[in-house]
């Protein structure tokens, strides 16, 4: 069983206060009463993957692959097939750098720009991240470049106080690029270890707002060449197929380096992130499983796949 497992799954179970069935039980449940591989097994599989938001295309590819493998390796036992499936999924998710590496060159801060659609969990993710970094003894500056949403600056300010991080902010309605520039300037001047810039949520279809983000990225780079070192796209795990469009548009506009997948403490599986990794090669770097500081976890492909079948 898996009850001792630390990390994201462990944290998840702990939070939910439920004993979730372990993987073996799930194999049993998923292919319940179907030890032999037949058409119904593939149908079940399709249902699980679609309901996990992997999308029609990704699901069909995977199911097709499984059929292929079953034939080639002459698999008869659905438990064996399940193991192959896990491998395939983990294999899909593994490429790329899933760690957020805080590599600042010399005295310069490592700059992270955080973007995403409205309500995805950007500010909360930043708050949690700041607390984590502070706990590791790093100095952190936050840039409050969401000057649009009501009380967004106050929200980030509260997080900065909780974390013991500095914050750079302007008045509401100020130019977000100017805030980002000043924040970079301040982080460099203070020789801070990390700078995390919060931005207003925006739909990827709003051309002007996407231009605004490009400008933010540009001015940060102007003040500190090479920055931002990471652009995190925050994605709500309940997001359906539109998540792929989000990822496409945000990566087209910015140098997105990774995904922070939030709200995995619900029942949503976040499978669209699999499609995103598969089609765009953007790795998941962080997992949000709640609103407390410990609820921000590093990504682990295997655990993620396990959770997909919980």
């Amino acid at each position, binding site marked *: 069983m898996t009850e001792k497992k630390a990390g994201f799954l462990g944290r998840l179970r702990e939070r939910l206060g439920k004993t979730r069935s372990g993987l073996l039980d799930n194999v049993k449940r998923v292919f319940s009463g179907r030890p032999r591989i037949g058409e119904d097994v593939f149908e079940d599989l399709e249902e699980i993957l679609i309901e996990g*938001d992997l999308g029609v295309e990704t699901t069909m590819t995977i199911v097709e692959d499984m059929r292929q493998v079953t034939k080639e390796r002459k698999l008869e036992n659905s438990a064996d097939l399940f193991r192959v499936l896990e491998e395939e999924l983990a294999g899909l998710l593994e490429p790329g750098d899933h760690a957020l590496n805080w590599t600042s060159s010399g005295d310069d801060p490592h700059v992270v720009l955080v973007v995403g659609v*409205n309500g995805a969990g950007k500010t909360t993710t930043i708050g949690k991240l700041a607390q984590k970094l502070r706990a590791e003894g790093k100095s952190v500056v936050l840039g409050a470049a969401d000057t649009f949403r009501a*009380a967004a600056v106050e*929200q980030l300010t509260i997080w900065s106080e909780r974390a013991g991080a500095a914050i750079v902010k302007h008045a509401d309605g100020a130019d977000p690029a100017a805030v980002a520039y000043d924040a970079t300037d301040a982080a460099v001047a203070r020789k801070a270890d990390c700078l995390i810039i919060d931005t207003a949520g925006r739909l*990827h*279809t709003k051309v002007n707002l996407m231009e605004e983000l490009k400008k933010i990225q540009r001015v940060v780079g102007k003040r500190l060449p090479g920055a931002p070192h990471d652009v995190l796209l925050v994605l709500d795990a309940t997001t*359906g*197929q539109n*998540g792929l469009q989000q990822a496409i548009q945000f990566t087209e506009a910015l140098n997105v380096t990774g995904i922070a997948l939030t709200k995995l403490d619900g029942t949503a599986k976040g499978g669209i992130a699999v499609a995103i990794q598969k089609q765009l090669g953007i790795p998941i770097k962080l997992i949000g499983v709640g*609103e407390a500081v410990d609820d921000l976890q590093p990504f682990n492909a295997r655990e993620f796949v396990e959770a997909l079948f919980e």
Partner: protein
Amino acid sequence: MFESLNKRLEEVFKNIRGQGKLTEKNMKESLQEIRMALLEADVNYKVVKGFIADVQEAATGQKVLDAVHPGQMIVKIVHEELVKVMGEKNEPLRMADSPPTILMMVGLQGQGKTTTAGKLAVMLKKKGHRPLLVGADVYRPAAIKQLEVVAGQAGVESFSLGENANPVDTCVMAGGEAQMRNCDVIILDTAGRLHVDAEMMGEVRQIHSAVNPTEILFVANAMQGQDAVNSAKEFHAVLPLTGVILTQMDGDARGGAALSLISVTGCPIKFVGTGEKLDALDAFHPQRLADQILGMGDIVSLVEKAQEVVDQEQALKFQEKARKATWDLEDFLQQMQQVKKMGSLGDLVKKIPGMNKMMPKGMDFDEDELKYAEAIVYSMTPYERRHPKIINGSRRRRIATGSGTSVPDVNHLLKDFQKMKKMIKKMMKGPKGRGPKGRGPQGLGPAGLGF
């Protein structure tokens, strides 16, 4: 992957064109296509299953077998069935017989409850009500502050006992507060919560039984995927939801989650959110959402929106000009000015079927660009405006100097003009393979827009 259902069905039916008849097997194939389209649109797997069965039944009963355009016929049936499921008409907000009306906003985190509460307040205020916005989210940092700011923007009263109070108390106290301030509608903004969080669900149930709201509105964003059924089901099990508000409908999500939400709650969708501003709340039109879920765009709302702001007479003139291809730079400029009034061109145009891809990149513009464009066009001679073809290099230099811009700016504008002209030509012809006749806005072709 995201092509419209129509196009995919065209593929399916290409093989049987000429046979003129739908066989059971053909039908099966097209239903499979519809199934895929619905899944891609984020309708829940199990909901799709039930829905397809219904469609099959409806189709078999309807003698579609000798249809001339079997693809369109099927789409029509699916469309009708979708509309039927989503409720044929728009359901208004329920108001209490004797005030106060209490609206309780509930939902998952980050769905847009606070903004939507503000939008409802604006809408009700316009109708002569006096809403009181109540901040009961004590968990998310600065959530109450956000509600206060929103109330300020909406120009309505707000109330909260603050972050250290029990949200149940805040909601209960709001009753007396409303009476004192002479407010007749109370809008409770509760914290976002997960349906699996027993403690938080307990809290919201407590609020409900303490205040007995007139409406319990489940706020859900349109980008949700398969899990929408699970959260909605849980919320509905704990609270007798009375309506759904679908937010972030201004993006490009297909919005299939709406179908899931309706299926599991049985509640009507009362409003849709279409932007970040407080007036961006629209009535729900099942027809339009059905179009969108099937990937057929949103012509009706586009035309309606355009009609609100476009001068009808001028629109007709443009239409005529477009037909005769005499549409010139003066029209272009006026067009830009009108589109500005309508909101972003990009957002609007994306709602037209097939336009999303056709739309050249960078056709969106802002206030500054409009100023540039005005300066450039006004620096042209009237003859040049009507005959842009004659604008050669030396004329471009003159225009650039005259308008205080650069030659690349002038080039850019002329290029945009050409792009738009081309687009208009295409629109006059209408997008190919659009939905079945008899649906949609008859006689309100895109030309009615005045482009």
